[in-house]
C-alpha cells in the first residue's frame, strides 16, 4: 500500500482524514483507488473526460510527477503521494 497525503481543502471529502492508504502500481491507479473510496473527490481531482484537473499537482516522494511519467509514474510499497494545488509562487 502507498500513502496519499490529503490537503485540508480536500479533507471534507475524506471525512477529515489527513492521509489515506491506497493500492496501485501507478499514480493513476492509486488515485483511482482513492476516488473509489471517497467518490466526492472525483470532481475535485478529475475533469469531465477523466484527465487530471489542470490545477492539481501530484508529487511522488516529493517529486512532481510532471518530471516523472505523470499518472503513469510507477509507485512502490511505502511510497508517499502528495496532492497539492498548482499554485503559490512569488519570489
Amino acid at each position: 500500500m502507498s500513502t496519499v497525503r490529503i490537503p485540508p481543502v480536500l479533507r471534507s471529502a475524506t471525512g477529515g482524514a489527513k492521509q489515506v492508504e491506497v493500492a496501485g502500481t501507478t499514480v493513476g491507479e492509486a488515485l483511482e483507488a482513492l476516488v473509489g473510496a471517497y467518490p466526492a473527490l472525483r470532481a475535485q481531482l478529475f475533469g469531465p473526460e477523466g484527465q487530471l484537473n489542470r490545477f492539481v499537482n501530484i508529487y511522488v516522494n516529493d517529486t512532481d510527477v510532471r518530471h516523472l511519467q505523470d499518472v503513469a509514474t510507477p509507485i512502490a510499497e511505502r511510497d508517499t503521494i502528495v496532492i497539492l494545488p498548482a499554485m503559490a509562487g512569488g519570489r
Partner: protein
Amino acid sequence: MTTETATPTATEPTGARSMMASAEGAGDRTSATEPATPSSRIVGLRCRNCRRPEPLGPSYVCPACFGPLEVEYDLAAARASLTRSTVASRPPGIWRYLELLPVDAVPRRGLAVGSTPLLEASRLGSELGIGRLWLKDDTRNPTLSFKDRPVAVAAARAVEFGFDVLACASTGNLAGAVAAAAAALGLRAYVFIPADLEPAKVEHALAYGATVVPIEGTYDEINRLSLEVADEEGWAFVNVNLRPYYAEGSKTLAFEIAEGLGWRLPDVIVAPIASGALFTKVARGIEELVVLGLVEPRPVRFVGAQPAGCAPVATAFARGAADIAPVRTPETIVRSLAIGSPADGLYALELARTSRGSIEAVPDAATAAAIRRLAATEGIFAETAGGVTIAAVEQARRAGVIGPDDEVVALVTGNGVKTPDARTFGLEPRPAGPDEPGLAPPIRPSFAAFEAWYRGGR
C-alpha cells in the same frame, strides 16, 4: 515624516523625474486621518477558474476545482470614492489607492512602501532606439524591491485575520520584504529560502530578526513544502495562503504608472515574470483604472521578461503552446526569477498573446550587460530581474514588438546591491586603464605613481 502637503506632483510627465515625492513617511500614521471606507467594496473571494464565490478568509484554493482564488471588489462602490482628486489629496505610498486594495482601512503601522519615482530614461531610450522610455524605479522601496508592495497588503491582512507568524517561500527579495514587514508589525517571521541563495539576500532577511530556514532544493520544491507547512502549522505565508491578498499589492505599480504619466496609459509595459503574478496584476490594475474612469482606455502591450535558463513561459509563448512545461532545474544567475513552475504562468501567457506583446527569454550575459548599461546611462543599479527586463526591452525593440515611437514603461523591480556579483558576469577581471570604467590597480599615495598610471595607460 511626510505631511499632507507633500503629495507627489504627478500630472506632468516631464516633471516626473524631479517632482515625484519619495515614499518616506507613507506608513505609520493613524487611520484617523483617512476617509472612512466601507469594507463592503470588498465582496469576497472568487475562483479565477470556475468563478465559484468563497467567503473572505485566509484561503487561496477553490475547493471545487483547485483553481486560484482572487479578491472581488464592488467597483461601483470604489468608483464613488476613488477619484483623481481624492488620490491627489492623500499622502504618498500604496494606500493612496486603498479602494482598490483588499484591506479594510489604512494600516496604523507599516513600512513606507510605494510612490517610487517614474523616471524619463532618455539616455537609455536613445541607445535602445525608443523615443519615450520610462523606468519605474522600485529599487527604492524600503527593502529595495517591489516585493514590499504585495507584502504590505498581505501583512495588513495577516493582522486583520489574527495571525502572529508571517512566512514566505522566497528566492530572496521576498525574504527581506517579509522579514522587515513582520518586524514593523511585531509578528514573528519565518523565511524559507534555497540553501544556495546569494549571501546579501540572506543577510538582509537576518538583519530584521527573521528565522531563516535554508532548504536544500529548488524554489519550486520550497514552494511545495511551504504549501504543506502553511496548511499544517497555520502560519500566514504571504505567497501561499494569503496569496489572493498579496498578489493585489502589485497592482499599485499600475496605479502609480498611470498617475505618474498624468493619468494616461503607455503603449507598452515591460515587466519580469517569475510566478507571473506581478505581470498579470499590473494588467488587472490598469483594467480597474479604466472601469473607475481614472484613465482613458487604450490598448497596452505587455512584454514579459524571463532568464533563458528558466523560461517556461517564454518557451510556451515562442512555441504557441497551450500549456507550460515546468523547468525542473533552473540554470541562471537570475535567482529572483528562477521559478520553474510558475503559478500564474498560464495567465501571463494569455496576457502576452491577447495584448499583442511578447515574452522574451534573455541569456545571462545579456542580463549582465543590461545591468551595466542601465547603471551607466541612467544611474540606476538594478538587481538581476531589472537586467532581464531592460534586456527584454532591447530584444522586443529589435523584434519589432516595440516600435521607435512607442511610449514604453519598464519595471525595474529590485536593487543591484542585492546581487552585486551579477554585474560582472561573463567579464574577464582586469585592472581598468585611465579612460575606461572599472577598478584601477592599487596605486601608492604619490602623484608620481598616479601619473605613471594615468599617463602610462594612454
